[in-house]
C-alpha cells in the first residue's frame, strides 16, 4: 500500500523507528543471555563460516541440479494427472481412479520415505537395465511426490474455470480435448502460477532429503563439516544458500499474485 505526501513520510519514519527499537531489544536480549558466548561460538563462528563457504556452494549445485531436472518433469506429470482426473464418462473410470489413488498415495507418504524406499529398494531388486544411481532415484522420488501435489494445484485451477467456458467451447464444435487444450487449461494454468511456484520452493528445500541416499548435497556436506569441527556454523551457511535462492522466487510469486489480483479487479497495472 502506498501513501503520499507528509503522512507517507511520517509513517515511513515511524516504521523505521519501531524496526530499529524492536531489533535493538532482540539483540540485547539474545546477547545478554547466559548461553550467548557458547551459541556464538557454535553457530556463528567466523572461521568455520569462511571454511564452509569454500565447499558448501559446490555441493549446493547438486541441489540446484536436482530441483531443476525434477521441476521440468513435475510440471508436465502433474498436469497429466490433473487432466486424467478431469476426464468425463464411465469409460475413463480406470484412469480417473488411477489419478485419485496416485495423488492420495504420494501426498500421504512422507517424502523422506519415498526417497528411502525407491533409492535403496528398487536397486536392491537387482533387475538388469534398471538404474542404481541414487541421484536418479532421488529425482524420481521427488517427481512422484511433487507431481501429486502439483496435480491437485492444477485440478483446483481447472475446476475454477467456470463450466460455461467448456460448454461454450463444446457448442462451438470443439472436442473435449480441444476445449481443454485451448479454452480451459490456458485460463486454469494462469490462475495457479503462484501456488505452483510455492510448490517449487518446497521442492527446492526437499532436495536436501536426497542426501539420505549418500549423495553429497549442501545439507550432507554441512553435516560432514559440522561433525568434523563440532560446530554448527556450516548449517547456517547452507540455510543462507537456500534462502538466497528462495527469497527472489517468493518475491516473484508475490508480484505475480499482485498482478493477477489487479487484473481480476480490472485495475490498470502501474
Amino acid at each position, binding site marked *: 500500500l502506498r501513501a503520499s505526501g507528509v503522512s507517507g513520510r511520517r509513517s515511513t519514519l515511524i516504521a523505521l523507528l519501531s524496526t530499529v527499537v524492536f531489533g535493538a531489544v532482540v539483540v540485547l536480549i539474545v546477547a545478554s543471555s547466559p548461553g550467548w558466548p557458547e551459541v556464538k561460538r557454535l553457530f556463528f563462528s567466523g572461521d568455520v563460516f569462511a571454511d564452509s563457504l569454500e565447499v558448501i556452494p559446490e555441493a549446493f549445485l547438486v541441489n540446484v541440479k536436482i530441483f531443476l531436472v525434477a521441476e521440468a518433469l513435475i510440471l508436465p506429470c502433474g498436469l497429466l494427472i490433473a487432466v486424467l482426473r478431469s476426464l468425463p464418462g464411465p469409460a475413463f473410470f480406470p484412469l480417473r481412479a488411477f489419478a485419485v489413488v496416485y495423488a492420495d498415495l504420494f501426498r500421504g507418504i512422507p517424502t523422506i520415505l519415498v526417497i528411502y524406499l525407491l533409492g*535403496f529398494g528398487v*536397486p*536392491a531388486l537387482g533387475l538388469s537395465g534398471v538404474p*542404481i*544411481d*541414487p541421484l536418479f532415484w532421488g529425482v524420481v522420488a521427488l517427481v512422484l511426490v511433487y507431481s501429486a501435489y502439483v496435480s491437485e494445484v492444477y485440478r483446483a485451477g481447472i475446476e475454477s474455470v467456470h463450466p460455461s467456458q467448456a460448454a461454450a467451447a463444446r457448442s462451438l464444435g470443439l472436442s473435449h480435448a480441444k476445449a481443454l487444450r485451448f479454452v480451459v487449461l490456458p485460463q486454469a494454468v494462469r490462475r495457479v502460477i503462484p501456488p505452483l511456484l510455492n510448490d517449487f520452493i518446497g521442492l527446492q528445500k526437499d532436495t536436501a532429503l536426497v*542426501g*539420505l*541416499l*549418500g*549423495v*553429497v548435497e549442501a545439507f*550432507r556436506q554441512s*553435516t*560432514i563439516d559440522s*561433525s*568434523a569441527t*563440532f560446530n554448527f556454523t556450516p548449517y547456517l551457511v547452507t540455510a543462507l544458500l537456500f534462502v538466497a535462492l528462495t527469497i527472489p522466487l517468493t518475491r516473484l510469486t508475490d508480484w505475480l499474485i499482485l498482478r493477477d489480483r489487479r487484473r481480476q479487479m480490472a485495475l490498470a497495472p502501474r
Partner: protein
Amino acid sequence: VRRFFLPLIAVLALAAAACGSDEEATTTTPAGGTETAAADACAKDQLNLVSDGQLTIGADNPSFPPWFQDAEGAPWDPTGPPTDQGYEAAVTAGVAEQLGFSPDEVRWVVVPFNNSYKPGPKDFDFYVNQVSYKPARDEAVDFSDSYYDVEQAVVALKDSEFAGATSLADLQGAKLGAQVGTTSYDAIVNVVQPDQEPAVFDRNIDAITALKNGQIDGLVVDFPTSLYVTAVQVPKGTIVGRLPAGEEYLGFVFEDGNPLRDCVNEALAALHEDGTIEQLQDEWINASAPPVLE
C-alpha cells in the same frame, strides 16, 4: 560347550600369569612403594561404585560380534545371561578380575550408545561399546586409556573389480562410502584420497545397503566391524584390506570425574603389560586379518 570355555580358560590362565609378573615387578622395581599406595586406593572396598560390592557395566542391546557374542556366536543381549565371549567381553572380564571382582559380581545394564557419552550422572560404573575417544565427548564424560586402537578396513563385493585391490592406488577409481562423522569417512578423504567423491550416509546400515545394491564400490568401516559386515550382513562381501591406523581408539566411558577410571586404567595397563590385550585381539579380531594397504 568347548567354544564357551576356551576363552574363559585363556583369560584365567593369563590372569594367573599376570599375578606372577606383578610379584616379580614389585620385587625388582624401586617404584613398588607408590604401587602399593595406588593399590590401596583401588582396593575393592575403596572403589567408587554405583552399587557396593558389584561392578555395574553398561552395553547396548544387542551388542555385536566380534565385541560381544552369546554362546552360539550370535549378537549378545545384556539383559540375558552374561557372556565372556567376544573381545570387549573378554577385556572387561580381565579388568573386573584385576579389580578383584568375581564373574558373578559383575552386573550388566543396557544403555543406548548415544546416551553413553551424554553429560550427567550415570547408572553404570563404566560403559563398554566401542565408544571412540573424541575431545568433544571427553568434555562430557571421562575416557579410560585405549583398550583398542582402531584401524579402518575397505569392504567390497567379491565380484567387484576392486575386490582384488592390493594397494591404495588400486582404489583410486572406486566410489567409496562411509557413515557421516566417522573416522571411516576421514580415512577415505585423508588416506585413500580417491578420484570420486565419497558417498556419505546417516547410518552404517544405509552404507551397507548401498554396497549390496552396487551403488558404492567399497564401504569403509572400522576393521572389527568389517568382520561382522562380511560374516553376517553382506555374505557376498570381502575385506579388501585394512587402512593404516589413525589416532582413533576405543575407551571405557565413565561419569565425568569418576575416580574409578584411574583404577581401571591401572588394570588395563596390567593387561597390556602381560600381553593379555594383544592375545585377546589376536584371538577375537585379528585371526583372519587381511593385509594393510599401503
